[in-house]
């Protein structure tokens, strides 16, 4: 199993350990292994619809972000360029109503990104999230797969303890071993 696969497995394991009642995702090649692992877990549990696609990121914030009002907790898996779509929902709903939410997002604005256009939004995402007060933790090639897993898990706990959305930005670029992108 490659390091990239180990990271994806760790992220999925963390979401499972957090007992996320629902996981909404906006598709991406990079996060697909995380989604596939979560769906694999669901099939092993007898087939639930815990994991489902959502058409846009702000819609995911509305659906998954509402779960704490029912006593549950959820996670969104997406790409970081989607924060451009989701910013009003994250701020005026999740932040303003103090609703915990875990968002794990692969990055498209850093090393290894081939698409010159997408840097224009993704490169500014960390500053964007900081400007609106959304706690953000970052993972990249320097973190071990175990660290990826534990960081995502603790970020989910952090969201619950602080009653707000928390983001983990995941840069999957592997340096000399790289080569995959969405």
């Amino acid at each position, binding site marked *: 199993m490659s390091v990239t696969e180990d990271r994806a497995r760790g992220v999925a394991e963390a979401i499972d350990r957090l007992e996320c009642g629902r996981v909404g995702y906006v598709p991406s090649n990079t996060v697909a292994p995380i989604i596939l692992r979560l769906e694999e877990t669901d099939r092993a549990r007898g087939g639930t619809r815990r994991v489902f696609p959502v058409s846009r990121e702000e819609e995911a914030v509305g659906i998954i972000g509402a779960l704490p009002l029912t006593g549950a907790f959820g996670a969104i898996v997406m790409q970081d360029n989607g924060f451009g779509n989701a910013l009003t929902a994250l701020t005026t709903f999740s932040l303003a*109503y103090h609703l915990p939410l875990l968002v794990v997002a692969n990055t498209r604005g850093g090393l290894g990104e081939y698409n010159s256009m997408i840097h224009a939004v993704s490169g500014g995402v960390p500053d964007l999230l900081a400007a609106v007060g959304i706690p953000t933790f970052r993972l990249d090639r320097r973190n071990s797969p175990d660290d990826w897993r534990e960081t995502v898990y603790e970020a989910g706990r952090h969201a619950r303890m602080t009653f707000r959305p928390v983001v983990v930005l995941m840069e999957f670029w592997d340096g000399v071993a790289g080569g995959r992108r969405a």
Partner: protein
Amino acid sequence: MRRIEALRVITSATADLPVVATCAATSRELAAVADRDNHLYLLDSMGLTSSVGTGLALGVADSAVEHVVVLDGDGSLLMNLNALATAGYLLPEALVLVILDNGSYASTAGLPTYSQTLDLGRIAEACGLRVARADDTAGLAAALTAAFAEPGPTVLHVRTEPGNAPDIPLLLVDPVVLADRFRRWLTARMAGRTDSPERWADEVGEVGQ
């Protein structure tokens, strides 16, 4: 039928159900008709109401709460028309989506919406959702009764007159307070509790702990 007349019918039928309302004039008029713990007012979050309602409907599955009532407007829904497709895909049985369609952005100068020429009910049907229609208070009351009699999701496409009710006060409440009172009410109802909120306020645990 004016929107506030529709809201009076809806509040009389939803005292025991969670209700989430779209922003601006709709939430303000709802609070003016009846300000209850089972109401969640979205003070901004433009276009997000139906998505929030879908999340709530998923969250109450397998609990004592059988329906979640969403009060969206034509303008708000058109800002996030994806919500109909997602509801049609996920089919949350508790969802009762009421589209209060006045053909205009009534909170923003009454500018026209697409619903003056597009039929939002037909769009919902195309997404695989069951749709009922009403354009007067008696029809709305009957449609709500029918919607609550069986599993959903159900969409009620309700035509109302343009304009807002006069002299409705602003909703100057901290969203944290709105969310907390709604959550306490809802989680208690999900557990089958129907007694006074004061009695269970200290018993309901914090989120996901």
